[in-house]
Each structure stands twice: as C-alpha cells, then as structure tokens.
C-alpha cells in the first residue's frame, strides 16, 4: 500500500515536471512560460517530496519533507512575481495574441510605482456602470470601421472614452476615427451591454 502511494506520487511529480519543461520550451512569451514552469514545478516537487515522506515513513523525515514543500509553496510565487515584474519593467514583450494588459500605462517608468486608473468615486455612485479596458484583436470585424459605423452608443449604450494607440492617446474620439488592430479602448457602460459590445469587438471578420 505504502509503495503504491509513493509510486503514484512519483509518477504525478515526474509528469508535472515534464509538463513544466515542455511549457518552458513551447510557450510563446516569457509570462506564459513562467506560468507553465512555476505551477508545474511547485506541484511536481511537492508530490515527489510527499512520496519521500511516504517512502521513509518516519516522523522526523516526513516533517523535513513537509518543511521543504512549505518552503517551495512560499518562495516559488515570490520568485515568479519578482521575475515577472522585472521583466515587465525592462520591456520584455508580451505575446502578440495577448488580449488584456491591465498594467499598460499605469506605472511610472522612473519610480516603478503602480497606480490605478479606476474611478472609485464614479463607480460607487453609478453602481451599475463599469469602466472596461480592452484591446482590439488582430482579426476583429470592427477593424477599419469608423466609430460612426460601429454605433457603440446607439446599439449598446456604451461610451468610448479614449483609444490608446501605441504611444498616442485619442481622448473623446470623434465619429470619423477608424479602429485599428491593437488599439486599446476605454469603455464605460452597464455590465451586460458592455459584454455585448465586447462580444462584437472580439468577433473575427
């Protein structure tokens, strides 16, 4: 019985670590690679150490194995967070298929301090309104269309506050502005209607 448990744990651990290796090699950008590697290794080392605790089945050794597991669970997210943060600040590019980048434009490039562009006061008073930020995907049906043609306000009662286009910000855009792939839109509206507008923008042509 003891052998079977430890055998199964070893198999799970080895499989997870292999997945981590494959993920690290095959994922398209640093952040997804990190996601694959850290999750699988934490669980992988965890199950192999559990196998060791079962295998030796002595309280002192099992305690030591559990201490290493606790240590891995504590440190692995911290290390991943620090590397991810450093990579983001030093400009390691995101995968071109990335849909949401909530950090964009929200940190001071010199002090590395983050700030939110939420509108807590506004959102508290207008409880059913939300502010959304999303990127126009490469194949979207709205690409090349003007805002007047898309009629976000008329069809969804959703207002477009601003467009982030590369280094530029088009605030309060006019009806003749055309949407391009990669534009980031700041939308305000009710939750349900926003979802409908987002569905339209995510529709591929």
């Amino acid at each position, binding site marked *: 019985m003891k052998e079977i448990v430890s055998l199964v744990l070893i198999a799970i651990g080895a*499989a997870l670590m292999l997945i*981590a290796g494959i993920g690290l*090699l095959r994922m398209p950008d640093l952040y997804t690679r990190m996601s694959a590697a850290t999750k699988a*290794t934490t669980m992988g*080392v965890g199950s192999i150490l559990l196998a*060791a605790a079962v295998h030796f089945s002595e309280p002192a050794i099992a305690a030591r194995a559990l*201490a290493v597991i606790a240590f891995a669970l504590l440190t692995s997210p911290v290390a*991943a967070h620090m590397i991810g943060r450093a990579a983001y600040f030093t400009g390691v590019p995101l995968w071109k298929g990335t849909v949401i980048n909530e950090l964009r434009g929200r940190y001071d490039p010199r002090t590395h301090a983050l700030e939110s562009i939420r509108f807590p006061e506004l959102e508290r008073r207008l409880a059913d309104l939300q502010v959304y930020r999303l990127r126009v995907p490469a194949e979207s049906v709205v690409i090349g269309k003007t805002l007047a043609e898309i009629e976000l306000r008329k069809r969804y009662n959703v207002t477009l506050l601003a467009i982030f286009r590369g280094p530029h910000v088009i605030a309060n855009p006019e009806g003749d502005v055309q949407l391009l792939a990669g534009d980031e839109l700041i939308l305000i509206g009710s939750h349900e209607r926003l979802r409908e507008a987002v569905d339209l923008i995510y529709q591929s042509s």
Partner: protein
Amino acid sequence: MSLEMMAFPGALTILSLAMALAFIRLMRGPSLPDRVIALDLIATLAVGMIVLYAMAIDQPVLLDVALALALLSFLGTVAFARYLERSHRP
C-alpha cells in the same frame, strides 16, 4: 526488486528530459528573464532528482541537500530579479 525501485530510473529519466528542455530554453533565451526562469526550473528539477535519489539509495540525509539547493535557487532568482529591475533606467 520492489515495484518502487523500478520506478526511480524511469522518473529520473523523465526529469532529465525536462532538464534538457529547460537547457534549450536557457541557451535560446531570448531575454535575460527567460534564462533566469530556465535556471530556476533546472534547480527545481535538480531538487526533485536529489529527492528521488535519496529514496532510491535509502539515504534520508540527502533531503537536507534538497532543502539547501531550494533555498539557494530562490535566493539566486530573487537576486537576479533585483539586479534586472535596478539596472534598467529608462
């Protein structure tokens, strides 16, 4: 030869394969953080290997080595991250 004893070579082979994959990422990069996470994964895989080996030769004292290596690899990764973030001034 118990069933468990036969599992160790197999598991060690799988871990070696994962380590080879991580090593390819270490060489390819392309960015420094990519290499840092590849090194981190290699250290984690080494911890797994040491624990497997400790079971295979029935030497629980090797678990301390695994703990020390895990600690060192964490400190190394954190140091790399600090250095990366500080060395970058736009």
